[in-house]
């Protein structure tokens, strides 16, 4: 499957090829999960949002003009899906679900609690790059593609995010 690019997979997915859909999901699911982790509150239904993201992506796939951009297309949908959930949550239409949350939230041993809290306290744009870098890609290029940024912007945001984290941890914040 390494020889097949996203554009080819998108074409096949548009022709209702389940294998192509599976490949697209498996290629991008870690990135989408990281983004959902960043955009949802602690104990948010990450897996549900990941699933919803791919469902919407495939249903709206015909709108994707640049077939090779499935990753950023799906990331954009993930952002909207999570925003919708947060809005619904604010209106009291959804509730956090313990089982889902328990399965989806990263392990939080005592040594990591402060770091988790510090990451959660970051502004969204910095939390996104931290989540994508450490939970998915470790690649400026992939993160840039997902978020629609330049690699320089990813570099700058990552530098700022780490700087904020260091300040927060040094100050006992978070």
């Amino acid at each position: 499957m390494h020889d097949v690019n996203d554009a080819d997979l998108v074409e096949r997915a548009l022709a209702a090829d389940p294998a192509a859909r599976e490949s697209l999901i498996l290629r991008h699911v870690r990135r989408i999960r990281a983004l959902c982790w960043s955009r949802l509150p602690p104990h948010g239904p990450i897996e549900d949002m990941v699933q919803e993201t791919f469902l919407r992506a495939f249903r709206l796939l015909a709108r994707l003009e640049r077939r090779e951009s499935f990753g950023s297309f799906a990331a954009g949908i993930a952002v909207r899906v999570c925003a919708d959930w947060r809005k619904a949550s604010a209106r009291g239409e959804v509730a956090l679900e313990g089982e889902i949350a328990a399965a989806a939230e990263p392990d939080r041993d005592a040594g990591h609690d402060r770091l988790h809290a510090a990451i959660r306290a970051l502004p969204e744009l910095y939390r996104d790059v931290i989540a994508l870098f450490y939970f998915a890609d470790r690649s400026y290029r992939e993160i840039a593609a997902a978020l629609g940024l330049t690699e320089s912007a990813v570099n700058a945001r990552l530098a700022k995010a780490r700087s904020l984290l260091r300040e927060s941890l040094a100050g006992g914040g978070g």
Partner: protein
Amino acid sequence: MSRSSDELLNAYLDGALDAAERGNVERDLERDPSLAAKLAALRDLDEALANIASPAGNDAAIVAQVERTLRPQSIPRSPWPLILATALGLAAGFLLAVEFERPADPSSLDPAIATPHWTKDPSACAYASKVIGRPERMHRNSKGGEPIAADTNFVAGDTVFLAADDRMVVDGRDESRVYLAANSVANWGDDGRPALREGRAVFASAQGSDLTFDAGEATLTVVDGACAAEIEVFQSKVAKKIPETLLRVVVVRGELIVGDRRFAAGSSLAIADGLVSEDQPPIDSQWFVELATQLSAR
């Protein structure tokens, strides 16, 4: 070089510099102990971050669930038919509330189903509206498939079966003009207007009547014509939590206005997330047009 030294140091740590840039940073590190200390601190943080467990997930389950949901022949989890068709008109005399199983092709559509008369055969039609969230009162209708007395009050959790000439009153207002019935539907949005939250439905409006329906952030308004829309609300587990709505609309007669866009008869379009796009073509469009034509011709 436009990058700050901090950004360069981060890029160096992340292996994102080319050979020349890397060489420059390494020379600076040798010359400047404070820079080297900064890098060491960055490395410590990087290690700590790298040791945080990624969000747990089950990729195979995601794939399986997406496939189950997208596969067109998938069997609905509930015993109710997947495809519902519902429309109630008022004074114009267009009153209809039926649900359909999606026929395999247009020719398989049973004319008896498409006619606006009341039938209680749940294998042919199901007329389900689960009342969620607020009491409703209905006139001349039936509950659980059995005739019920007029002015019966319904409460949240009731399943209501609508007949073609049912009328529904909510909080003293006659709300039966546009009433969408679907299994497991939250029928009322925050603003008290009809809102389909889950399930699928088909509705149509008669010529001369207007029809508004909120689909996410989109509102359809039919002007001087007939419109039919298949409303699909994603059937995923998440759909219970997010009122995500995808409308597939065929304009049968007249003109359909969505926001500032106008669609002439014969147009088909899709609406999701408040966005409108030409749909090419909507699912089962032929069947859909035939059904809509039957309905709107009455």
